[in-house]
């Protein structure tokens, strides 16, 4: 199995055939197991369908199968000879957009589906806005149901033009359009023989080859999750800080600063149960020891000095995706969860709201479900941030309702 992992999110409007596309992708890539396929064939027969409904491979919940819609994100894992994939299949209904945001937050590639008969609709723009906002580095426009428009190039071209206009409004600098027919499999895994005018790759071929852009280089960022103090006979004085490197590379001997306090120390060791490391790149979960006995706790950020420096602040300007039925108004109070830190927050002002139809920002006084807007937040204690466009970890936060614990918003530091 190839070592490289690609995270893909699929999004589309209702009835764009997204689950069918994912089912087709899994089926034609020959990663569907015999018993799973038999179950789908039996279920299709029970429903009186002609042939196997590949969407049933992914729609796992009872309500999804009954209504023929996708409600929640479904994760699929498969590998081809070239790559290992984690695929997050997300719902099309506007009311479930928060699940699309969930899928997009960790994705390298977003596949946005459009029905060839209906073209670019409001949901397409919403999904494009979400993918662009969350910095999914590669966007695929999959124009589906080409079989229902006689595989005509003109239909495809018109949709690509409309999508390009929306992309340009959202400052998306590139995307890859692919004409597909999920039901018949054209351009999903195999190149279609019915669209000679298309010279590009099939969807799977594209996904197997794409090299997603990496985060820009930053000096190391290490949010402390927990303090490790065994106090055993073998390790009476051990004091280590456990966490995951969220940016850059942390090296033994690095001069570091503990934020927000600002105390200075040096990395004495990078420990793992399998032995010490000389360095730990972004993504590694390790335990570090410092050469000085400084006060470090969960929620602190250990950083290597250098440009760009992180911002230690009690005021934030941020873009948020509002994920809940209750509207957001200025004066609302929340907990903010940022890296491993959890502090009280007050929304000082709502500055603007993105109009999904025009893709222009306009002044607003509240945000409602699925709105994307810009707000100002004041915090009870400082947090340490980078802009989201520089780092997906230190630039991201959640707004959490204090009593219920519900996740109300996804936030991106401006």
């Amino acid at each position: 199995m190839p070592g490289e992992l690609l995270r893909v999110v699929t999004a589309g409007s209702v009835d764009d055939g997204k689950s069918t596309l994912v089912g087709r992708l899994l089926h034609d890539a020959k990663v569907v197991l015999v018993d799973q396929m038999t179950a789908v064939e039996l279920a299709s027969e029970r429903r009186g369908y002609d042939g196997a409904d590949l969407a049933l491979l992914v729609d796992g919940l009872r309500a999804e199968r009954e209504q023929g819609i996708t409600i929640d994100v479904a994760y699929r894992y498969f590998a081809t000879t070239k790559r290992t994939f984690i695929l997050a299949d997300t719902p099309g209904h506007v009311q479930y957009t928060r699940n699309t945001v969930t899928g997009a937050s960790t994705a390298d590639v977003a596949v946005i589906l459009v029905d060839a008969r209906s073209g670019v609709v409001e949901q397409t723009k919403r999904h494009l806005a979400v993918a662009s906002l969350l910095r999914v580095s590669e966007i695929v426009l999959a124009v589906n149901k080409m079989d229902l428009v006689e595989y005509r190039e003109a239909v495809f071209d018109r949709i690509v033009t409309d999508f390009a206009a929306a992309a340009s409004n959202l400052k998306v600098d590139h995307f890859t359009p692919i004409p597909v027919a999920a039901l018949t499999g054209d351009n999903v895994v195999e190149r279609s023989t019915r669209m000679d005018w298309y010279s590009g790759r099939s969807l799977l071929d594209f996904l197997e080859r794409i090299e997603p852009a990496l985060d820009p280089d930053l000096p190391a960022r290490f949010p402390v999750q927990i303090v490790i103090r065994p106090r055993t006979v073998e390790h009476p004085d051990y004091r280590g800080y456990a966490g995951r490197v969220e940016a850059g590379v942390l090296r033994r001997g690095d001069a570091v600063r503990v934020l927000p306090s600002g105390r200075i120390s040096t990395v004495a060791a990078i420990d793992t149960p399998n032995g010490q490391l000389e360095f730990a790149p972004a993504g590694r979960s390790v335990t570090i020891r410092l050469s000085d006995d400084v006060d470090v706790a969960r929620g602190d950020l250990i950083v290597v000095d250098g440009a760009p420096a992180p911002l230690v602040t009690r005021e934030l300007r941020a873009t948020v995706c509002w994920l809940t039925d209750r509207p957001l108004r200025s004066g609302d109070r929340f907990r903010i969860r940022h890296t491993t830190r959890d502090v009280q927050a007050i929304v000082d002002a709502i500055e603007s709201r993105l109009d999904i139809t025009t893709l222009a920002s306009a002044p607003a006084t509240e945000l409602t479900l699925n709105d994307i807007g810009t707000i100002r937040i004041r915090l009870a204690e400082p947090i340490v941030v980078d802009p989201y466009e520089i780092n997906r970890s230190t630039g991201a936060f959640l707004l959490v309702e204090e009593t219920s614990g519900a996740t109300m918003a996804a936030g991106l530091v401006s």
Partner: protein
Amino acid sequence: MTALLPHPSRDLDRTWLTDLEDEAIHIIREVIGQFERPVLLFSGGKDSIVMLHLAMKAFWPSRLPFPVMHVDTGHNFAEVIGYRDRKLDDWGVKLIVASVQDAIDSGRVTETVGQTRNPLQTVPLLDAITSHSFDAVLGGARRDEEKSRAKERVFSVRDDFGQWDPRNQRPELWDLYNGRHRIGEHVRVFPLSNWTELDIWAYIEREGIEVPSIYYAHDREVFERDGMLLAVTEWTQPRANETVRLQSVRYRTVGDATCTGAIASTARTVSEIVTETAASTVSERGATRADDRASEAAMEDRKRQGYF
């Protein structure tokens, strides 16, 4: 400083396994960062063994800062219970047993004769969560196992009744796991969400982890029922029309002995199991679990009621 665990073989240093390990350790550490009283569900099956191995790595050189709990149906494979008791003792890990038999004896649940005890695990599980005031329950479920599990969050809130509401799950963004919950609620945490069956075996191989012997091919008296190979045990006896034969088999999953089937196999080493798993054309649960064959949504229904 001496390393606690055997060093991973260099030639098995597969980058995606390191990614999965780093992610799981990050999730497990968040549990200790965010909760007061966690517990780790441990059945002696391969997934819970891998999860426990990762948890011990996450806190090393400290000891595991929470107990493990076995929800015991009473229908066990002797090899698995032997493994459980021996290894947990070696590691100095505290074990809590929530017993289905006790729940039956006290009338908390009613057993249907001839049916698997798997669905009966929900009541003793929820009772134990309440009586120990556990606020986080770590489980080894993987999203690739089953279609309703594919919809599960990493941090998944359960209400006072232990119920899962799949239509109203919290959005889970980036790696910001939100464990905040009301009093009386608890959170199920699944650090192996993104692992596949093949990843589990490849990791067992890389880390040199010991698993119960029934995972390896061995000769056993079995008979065929509903397309599955069932072992002849105290609880599973062949019916008149079912013939017993001695065959080389192994188990892909370890659960209640009455509903867990074996597969024909000659894989006697971990690396042979990795090869066999990579080539398999049937899913893990499809091959071995009678309880998931009951209906299209059998697992979803059990999960909604508080099952793991």
